[in-house]
C-alpha cells in the first residue's frame, strides 16, 4: 500500500514538474523596434502642370529610421533557433569548394566568408568581406596584381582538435591554392593562371597571368564556389573527408552536428567579426517532400521553407495567415539551344522559323509571373551586366516575337512546307518537362512533329552531353556573362568534340574572338559592349532562343526577418546572416 502511494506521489510530481517546466517563459532575445520620425531632405520628382518634371529637394517628414534595441538573451531562456526546411534528401559536401547543389550552397554561405562578398540579399553589389576594402589592380611586368589587406581579429571556428585562432594570409593562400587543385576542388579550372602569396600576416597578393576586369575577377575571391576561405589548421587536422561534413570557416554560424538525411545544426559564432548573430542557431532540415515542408511551416514547426516554382503555389501560400512568400533572384535561365550540325537545324532559316513558332508568353503561363519572367538574351539582363533587354533586342529586330504565319512561310522557303519531325529527351523534372511539352504543342502548329521521351534528370544531363538532342532546353544560373558565353557558346565547350567538352549544345564557333576579347577587357563598359555584340550574333544566327528565367521561391513565418531586402542571392536561398532574427 505504502509502495503504491509513493508511486502515485512520484507520478503526480512528474506531471506537475513537466507542467511547470512547460509554463516557463518563451525564450527570445528581447527585440524592441521603435520607429523614429526624423526630418530629412529627400529628392522628389515634383510634377508641375504643363511643365517638364523637375527634381527638387524638398523637406518632408518621413519615417526613415528604425531604431532596433536588442538586449542580450536573458538567462534561462531557450535559444532562438531558425528552422529551415530545404528541398533535399541529404547534403553532398559542405567542403565549400565542392558545394555545388542548392542545399550545400546555402549551408556553406552561413559558415564561410570570402575576401569580398555579394551584398546580402543583392547579388549585384560586391563589397569587402574578409578584406578591409576592394583593391584596385595594378600591372606589374605585364601581369595584373591585386593586393588584399585582411581585417584583423577574424576568428576561425573552434573544433574538437583545433582551438579558435585568428585567420591570416596563410589561410587565404592555402584556401585559394586548394580551390585551384582539381583533386581538392570542383572549380579548379577557374583558378588557372593565378598565383597567390602572403606578403605578411594580413596582406595577400594575387597575380594573374592575364588581366581581368573587376566584374570577372572579384567572383573568384567572393563568397561563392571556389572563393570561400577555409581555415587551414582545421582542415589539415581533420582531413578533407571529415571536412565534408564538418566544415570550419569564419562565418556567423558554426556547424554543431550533422544527422545524415535528417538535419544539420548550426550554432551562432559568438566571435563573429561583424558581431554576434541575433539568432542562437539554425536547424537546417532535409525535407524532400513539399507537402511535408508546407505542413511543417503551417504547423509552426518550421520558420522558413523552400517552396515550389509555381505561381499557383505562391498564391495559395500567400493567403495563409502569418505566412509570407518571397520570390527573388537569382533566376535560373531557361534557354533553347539548336544543334546547328544536324539536319534540318543546320539551316538558319529553319532555326529562325522555330523561334517564330515559339511563344514566350505561352511558356511563361506554365509557371506564371513573378515566379518566371521572359528573357531576351542568354545572359539575363536583370541580374548580370552584359545581358540584352527587351528594348535593345526589339530595336535590333531580334526579339523573335511569335508569328506562326511567318514561321510556316520560312519553313516552306527552306524546303519544308509540310514540316518535319524531331526526337528529344527531357528530364522528368517539372521545370524541364513542362517546357518540352509546351514546345511540342507549339511546334505542332507549324507542322513540326516533336517526339518527347521522358528520362530521369541525371540521364537527361548525360544524354544531352552525348549530343542526343537536336534541341536542348537548359536551365542554369552562371555567375557572370563570361561563364554563360564560354560554357554555352565557345567552340572549346562544344559537346563531345570540343577541346574541353562542356555545354555548347549548338556547336557554335562564331563568337570565340568576342568572348576572349571581353574576358581580358579591363574597361567595364567596353567589356559589356563586347558581351552584347556576342549575344547579338547568337540571336542573328539563332543558335539559341532565350526563353525565361525561374526565380527562387521561399516561404517563411512572418516572424522571420532576414535582416536584408531580398533582390537576388547567388546561394539560391534567402540568405541567413548575423542580422537575421525571429521577432516574436
Amino acid at each position, binding site marked *: 500500500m505504502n509502495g503504491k502511494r509513493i508511486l502515485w506521489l512520484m507520478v503526480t510530481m512528474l506531471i506537475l514538474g*513537466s507542467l511547470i517546466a512547460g509554463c516557463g517563459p518563451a525564450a527570445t532575445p528581447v527585440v524592441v523596434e521603435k520607429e523614429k520620425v526624423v526630418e530629412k531632405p529627400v529628392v522628389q520628382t515634383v510634377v508641375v502642370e504643363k511643365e517638364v518634371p523637375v527634381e527638387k529637394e524638398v523637406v518632408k517628414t518621413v519615417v526613415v529610421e528604425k531604431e532596433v534595441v536588442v538586449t542580450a538573451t536573458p538567462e534561462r531562456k531557450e535559444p532562438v533557433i531558425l528552422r529551415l*526546411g530545404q528541398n533535399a*534528401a*541529404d*547534403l*553532398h*559536401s559542405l567542403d565549400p569548394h*565542392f558545394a*555545388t*547543389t542548392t542545399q550545400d550552397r546555402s549551408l556553406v554561405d552561413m559558415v564561410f566568408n570570402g575576401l569580398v562578398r555579394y551584398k546580402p540579399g543583392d547579388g549585384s553589389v560586391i563589397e569587402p568581406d574578409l578584406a578591409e576594402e576592394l583593391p584596385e589592380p595594378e600591372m606589374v611586368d605585364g601581369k595584373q596584381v591585386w593586393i588584399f589587406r585582411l581585417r584583423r581579429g577574424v576568428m576561425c571556428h573552434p573544433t574538437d582538435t583545433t582551438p579558435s585562432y585568428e585567420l591570416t594570409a596563410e589561410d587565404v593562400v592555402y584556401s585559394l591554392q586548394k580551390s585551384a587543385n*582539381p*583533386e581538392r*576542388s*570542383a*572549380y*579548379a*579550372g577557374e583558378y588557372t593562371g593565378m598565383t597567390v602569396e602572403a606578403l605578411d600576416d594580413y596582406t595577400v597578393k594575387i597575380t594573374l597571368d592575364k588581366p581581368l576586369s573587376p566584374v570577372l575577377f572579384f567572383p573568384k575571391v567572393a563568397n561563392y*564556389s571556389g572563393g570561400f576561405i577555409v581555415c587551414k589548421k582545421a582542415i589539415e587536422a581533420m582531413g578533407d*573527408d*571529415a571536412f*565534408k*561534413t564538418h566544415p570550419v570557416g569564419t562565418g556567423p554560424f558554426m556547424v554543431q552536428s*550533422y*544527422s*545524415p*538525411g*535528417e538535419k544539420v545544426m548550426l550554432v551562432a559564432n559568438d566571435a563573429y567579426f561583424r558581431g554576434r548573430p541575433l539568432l542562437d542557431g539554425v536547424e537546417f*532540415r*532535409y*525535407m*524532400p*517532400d513539399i*507537402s*511535408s*515542408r508546407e*505542413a*511543417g511551416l*503551417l*504547423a*509552426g*514547426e*518550421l520558420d522558413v521553407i523552400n517552396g515550389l516554382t509555381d505561381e499557383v503555389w505562391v498564391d495559395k501560400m500567400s493567403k495563409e495567415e502569418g505566412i509570407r512568400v518571397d520570390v527573388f533572384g537569382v533566376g535560373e535561365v531557361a534557354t533553347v539551344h539548336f544543334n546547328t550540325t544536324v539536319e534540318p537545324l543546320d539551316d538558319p532559316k529553319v532555326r529562325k522559323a522555330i523561334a517564330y513558332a515559339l511563344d514566350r508568353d505561352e511558356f511563361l503561363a506554365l509557371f506564371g509571373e513573378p515566379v518566371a519572367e521572359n528573357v531576351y538574351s542568354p545572359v539575363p539582363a536583370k541580374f548580370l551586366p552584359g545581358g540584352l533587354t527587351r528594348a535593345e533586342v526589339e530595336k535590333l529586330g531580334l526579339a523573335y516575337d511569335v508569328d506562326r504565319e511567318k514561321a510556316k512561310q520560312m519553313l516552306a522557303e527552306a524546303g519544308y512546307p509540310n514540316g518535319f519531325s524531331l526526337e528529344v529527351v527531357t528530364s522528368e523534372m517539372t521545370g524541364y518537362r513542362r517546357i518540352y511539352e509546351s514546345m511540342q504543342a507549339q511546334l505542332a502548329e507549324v507542322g513540326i512533329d516533336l517526339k518527347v521521351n521522358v*528520362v*530521369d*534528370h*541525371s*540521364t537527361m*544531363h*548525360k544524354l544531352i552531353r552525348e549530343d542526343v538532342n537536336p534541341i536542348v532546353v537548359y536551365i*542554369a544560373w*552562371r555567375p557572370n556573362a563570361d561563364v554563360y558565353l564560354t560554357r554555352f557558346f565557345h567552340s572549346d565547350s562544344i559537346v563531345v568534340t570540343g577541346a*574541353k*567538352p*562542356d*555545354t555548347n549544345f549548338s556547336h557554335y564557333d562564331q563568337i570565340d574572338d568576342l568572348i576572349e576579347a571581353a574576358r581580358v577587357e579591363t574597361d567595364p563598359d567596353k567589356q559589356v559592349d563586347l558581351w552584347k555584340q556576342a549575344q547579338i550574333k547568337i540571336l542573328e544566327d539563332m543558335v539559341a532562343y532565350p526563353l525565361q528565367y525561374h526565380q527562387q521561391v521561399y516561404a517563411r513565418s512572418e516572424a522571420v526577418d532576414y535582416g536584408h531586402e531580398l533582390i537576388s542571392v547567388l546561394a539560391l536561398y534567402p540568405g541567413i546572416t548575423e542580422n537575421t532574427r525571429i521577432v516574436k
Partner: protein
Amino acid sequence: MLRYIVTRIALSIPILLAVFTLVFIVVRIIPGDPAEAALGDYASKQAVEALRERMGLNDPLIVQYLRFLGDLLRGDLGISMISGKPISEQVAHVLPYTLQLTFASILIGTLFGIPLGVFTATRRNTFIDYLGRIISLAGLSVPAFYFGILLILFFAIKIDLFPAVGGGDLKKPVENLKHLVLPALTLGLIMTTSVTRLTRSAMLNVLSEDYVRTARAKGLRERAVIIKHALRSAMVPIISIIGLWAASLIGDSVMTEVVFSRPGLGKMLVGAIMQRDYAALQSIMVIYAAFVVLINLVTDLIYGLVDPRISH
C-alpha cells in the same frame, strides 16, 4: 525447435545474398552517376572524374561487387559514398525510429483490427457490420501517404494536437511519442481495416462450425464461446495476415517517413536513391530483406504457439 530456427536462419543467407546481388546489379542499371549527382551540372568533367575515382566507381564491377560483399560478410555495411560516414552509424541512428513506427503500427492494427473483426462478425448483416465493411474497404483503398497528409492537415495544422514533421528526440520519451502518434496512426489504421476484414471472415467460417454450436449448447457464456473457442481457431489466418502486413509496413513506412519527414530507414533509402549512393542503397535493401526474412520466421513460430497441431 532450436534446430528449426537455426536451419531457417541458415537458409536465409542465400536469400540475402541473392537480394544483395540483385540490388547491386539493379542500382548500376538505373541511369545516373553518383559523382555527377554529387557535384551537379556546374562542376567540370575533371572534378567529376576525380570524384568517381575516389568513390571507387572506376574499378571493374566484379571488384566492386567482391569488395562490398566482403565488407558485408564481415558485418561491415560500408561507407556512404556521399557523406563518407560509416553506413552502420547512420542505420543505428535511424533504425529505432523505423522500428518504433513499425511496432506501433502493428500494435494499432492488431489491437483495433481483431476486436473490430470479431465484433462485426458477431453482428453479421446488421447496420454496424455494413458500416464496418464500408470503412474497411475505404481504408484498403487509401494510399498511406495521402492518409498521412490528411492526418497532418487535421491533427497538426487545424487543431495543433500533434507535431506535423520530424521524429522527436529519442532521449525525450514524451516528445518522441508525440511525434510517433500520427505516422503510427497512418499505417496502423490502414492495417486495422485489413485485419478487421480478415478477422471477420475467419470468424464467420469458424462460427458456423459444429463445435461452436456444441459449445453454445453446453451453456457456455457467449463471450467464452467467441474468445476461447472461435477466435483461437480463427487466429492462424489472422496471424499470417499480420505477418504479411508487418512485411508490407516496412515498404509503406518509406512513404510515411518521407511525408512526415521522420528519420528512418525509409527516408534514408529515398535519400540514397536520389543521390545514387550505391553503397548505402545496397546495405539498406539487405537490411530490409533481413527484416522480411525475420518476420516470416517469427510468424511461423507463432503458428506453433497458437495451434499446437503445427509443430516445427
